[in-house]
């Protein structure tokens, strides 16, 4: 169905080709998963399928890409719209109309289908994707998971034989991700659609894949094969595979179910041990002594007449990493906004080091609290990394070189004259964090920091956060990433509808939750083990 023959892609200003001599054949009806580090060329590979690379992005493509027998050399993307459905990273950015039903019809209108055909297909697609209740909802009012499903539906109405998705679940909370994946499953199994998708969150998708393609990047040949084959040697693996490697299971388990069936021996072995404290974050030692760094006391916040935060009370102490979890729209970002002084609470009291953050002038604010927003790029304005660091020093009123020194610790390999926009997601996050830390705030907040991060960048982020806590900062992060929470958080706060519904040590809160438990906890339940590193450490200790 999709065939790459000796394909290389090189963009004008890049020193090395992004894709190098790729040979790949994806047969009809397969669900094929593309994995690899950030910058390894996953997006380029996906966008080459319908000719966006190079027709739209520029650059030179050598070799041949054919889809359903059509060569992308002779067919620009619009001529392939009836065979390839392409859903980008941010589905909302591709919406042309403003109502669900019209969005579903838009592609068909462009293809010039007859009105009765369009009507029938819209109805079929609404049912197929479970969107019937949303048919005349404005697109702007949909949740992230609904938006993703609408974006899939909008390309599906053209009846493409292949569907290409770039990180379809990375912005979604666990339940919404399940919804989207269920839809993809159904398309592959019932309709025989060929699906090609790239995803960093392997733990969510690898079990559904028929084939995994690993792009190592840097001109190394790609590796393609059955999931078990590729996962056995791939450097990027989900926790469940890593656990399999630690425990010496072969073939590696791909799903929690596989792992649980293999894990009875391991569970028996671990039942006799107690989980070690996670490296360096001080879990287990009481951190609630001393005055809290930040307190919310019965705080409520609202946008217009929508209450986003209802009577929330929370204390955050020095040296503590607190994870905020909950579905999209549960009030996590609003809580962070209150602590960062961006949202004024309508009732109740918010204090950071005794001050009300929304009353502070910006120059004082940076010394009390640092927030890395959802899109770290928002914080960056300068043309080069060095200029950004210098500006951060001036903004915070600290000696020149402070921010650059912080950045050197977080991100040693980045040159000083790189443009911030040319950094990878992980590098940009590190730069934003360095900028925020320049003011030495006692409270550091992160909003959804792992979006678009690969496993390597995530491990580095986890180490950084633990180091911050060890240095005596308080860290609060809002995230959907259960694996990151398991790695770093001492305490987990679960929110729903603007209220706190659970608050306690991470192990207690997440192990019992079906949505928020990390894979290792699910495999080893009811034992309170959270991460592969803990298990590895305990097994080593036990000899």
């Amino acid at each position, binding site marked *: 169905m999709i065939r790459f023959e000796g394909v290389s892609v090189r963009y004008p200003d890049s020193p090395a080709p992004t894709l190098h001599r790729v040979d790949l054949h994806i047969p009809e009806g397969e669900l094929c998963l593309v994995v690899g580090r950030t910058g390894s060329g996953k997006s380029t590979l996906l966008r080459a399928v319908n000719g966006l690379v190079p027709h*739209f992005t520029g650059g030179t493509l050598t070799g041949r890409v054919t889809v359903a027998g059509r060569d992308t050399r002779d067919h620009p*993307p*619009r001529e*392939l*719209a009836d065979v*390839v*459905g392409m859903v*980008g990273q*941010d589905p909302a*950015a*591709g*919406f*042309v*109309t*403003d109502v669900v039903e*019209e969005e579903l*019809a838009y*592609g068909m*209108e*462009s*293809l*010039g*289908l007859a*009105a009765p055909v*369009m*009507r029938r297909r*819209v109805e079929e697609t609404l049912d197929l994707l479970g969107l019937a209740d949303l048919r*005349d909802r*404005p697109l*702007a*009012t*949909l*949740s992230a998971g609904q938006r993703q499903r609408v974006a899939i539906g909008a*390309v599906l109405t*053209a009846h493409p034989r292949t569907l290409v998705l770039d990180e379809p679940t990375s*912005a979604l909370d666990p339940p919404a991700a399940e919804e989207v994946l269920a839809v993809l499953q159904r398309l592959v199994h019932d309709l025989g659609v060929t699906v090609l998708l790239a995803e960093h969150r392997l733990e969510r998708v690898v079990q559904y894949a028929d084939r995994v393609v690993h792009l190592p990047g840097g001109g190394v040949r790609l590796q393609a094969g059955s999931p078990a084959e590729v996962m056995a040697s791939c450097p990027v693996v989900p926790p469940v595979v890593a656990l399999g490697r630690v425990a010496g299971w072969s073939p590696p388990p791909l799903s929690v179910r596989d792992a649980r069936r293999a894990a009875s021996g391991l569970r028996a072995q671990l039942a006799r041990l107690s989980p070690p404290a996670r490296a360096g974050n001080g879990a287990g030692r009481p951190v609630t002594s001393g005055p809290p760094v930040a307190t919310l006391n019965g705080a409520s916040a609202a*946008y*217009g007449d929508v209450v*986003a935060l209802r009577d929330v009370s929370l204390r955050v102490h020095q040296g503590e990493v607190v994870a905020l979890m909950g579905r*999209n729209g549960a009030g996590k*970002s*609003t809580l*962070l*906004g209150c602590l*960062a002084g*961006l949202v004024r609470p309508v009732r109740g009291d918010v204090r950071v080091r005794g001050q009300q953050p929304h009353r502070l002038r*910006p120059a004082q*604010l*940076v010394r009390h609290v640092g*927030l890395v*927003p*959802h*899109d770290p790029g*928002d*914080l960056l*304005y300068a043309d080069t990394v060095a200029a950004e660091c210098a500006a*951060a020093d001036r*903004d915070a009123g600290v000696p020149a070189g402070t921010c650059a020194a912080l950045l050197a610790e977080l991100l040693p390999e980045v040159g000083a004259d790189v443009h911030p926009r040319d950094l990878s997601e992980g590098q940009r996050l590190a730069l934003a964090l360095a900028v925020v830390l320049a*003011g030495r705030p006692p409270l550091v907040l992160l*909003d959804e920091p792992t979006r678009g991060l690969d496993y390597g960048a995530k491990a580095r982020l986890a180490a950084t956060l633990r180091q911050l806590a060890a240095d005596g900062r308080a860290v609060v992060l809002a995230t959907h990433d259960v694996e990151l929470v398991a790695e770093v958080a001492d305490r987990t706060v679960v929110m729903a509808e603007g209220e706190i519904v659970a608050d306690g040590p991470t192990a207690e809160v997440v192990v019992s939750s079906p949505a928020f438990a990390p894979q290792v906890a699910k495999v080893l339940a009811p034992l309170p083990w959270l991460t592969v590193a803990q298990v590895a450490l305990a097994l080593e200790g036990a000899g």
Partner: protein
Amino acid sequence: MSIRPWVAPRPLHPGAWWLWALGLATAAGRTTNPLLLLLVVAVAGYVVAARRTAAPWARAYGAFLKLALTVLAIRVVFHVLLGAPTTGTVLVTLPALDLPSWAAGVRLGGPVTAEALAAAAYEGLRLATVLVCIGAANALANPKRLLRCLPAALYEVSVAVVVAMSLAPQLLADVQRVRAARRLRGRPDRGVRGLRGVAMPVLEGALERSLELAAAMDSRGYGRSAQLPRRVRRTTAALTVGGLFGVAAGVYGLLDAGSPPLLGLPLLGGGALLAAAGLALGGRRTVRTRYRPDPWAAPEWLVSASGLLAAATVVLSAALGVGGLDPSTSPLGWPVLPVLPTLGVLTALAPAVLAPRQQPPRPPLAAASRKAEPATVGAGR
């Protein structure tokens, strides 16, 4: 609302709402009777309340109402301060400013008479009412569906407008986000310097987003076109350009008093015909079809007819010299409602009952609107 619709809920053709509103506006334009004007405002307001949707543009009525009140206030204030001296019942005497002799016709301050005040208020109210009618059309008709009624040859233009309209609110959200981010960096988020720092990231973001949108539209088949023979393309171009020339010359002929009157109208009409033919021929280039085009059926006829009837009665009454359309302000008398125009304007209430409900009622968008107000960094998404 307890009024039961007589047909199943569906969005009405936007053209019908515009005809209805323009009818009401025409009626308002022909009278200065404050009672009649207030009646028009009330009729428009009632229909909007009964038939508007939850869509964002439905709030246009409130916005236009505020604009109308502002216009009215400005008109009255200016008249009080600057109006020509009048005689009549003096309500209050403002301190007058002596102006040099060359500005003898103008007065600043001085006595304010009830008659002058009433005249200014009536005039202002007329303009305000016309604005309110336009606001009602904006609130009731989906602007995007209106654009979809454009001829196929103008499809690209209408898409550009639609995209621009959906980008505007996002731009606003971006400004809020970037301002919040500046505050987080410890920089001023207000003032001229703050503004400059905000503009660049917002523009960059908008540019990136439009590229992404263009890629998505391309992948979904936007811009596919049929190959037309060269002869047809040339004919299209000739027709359109010739037609536009004709229209331009015709308008000049109409407006220029010196040119022969016969030059104007025929040229204008002929030019318009040619241009229309060009557009129709050009439309053959696009292969696209339309999903569920808005039908023009009985409700559309009724709605537009009710508005046009309101206009017709008022215009007709004015032509026949029916009294009460322009109540006297000097001497000042209590205005009365003229019977025929009042009945005419009241018929424009019909859509509140006869038009189908625009949308099936649905649960409030509580969870949804939470997404729409990114006052914080990273809210939304």
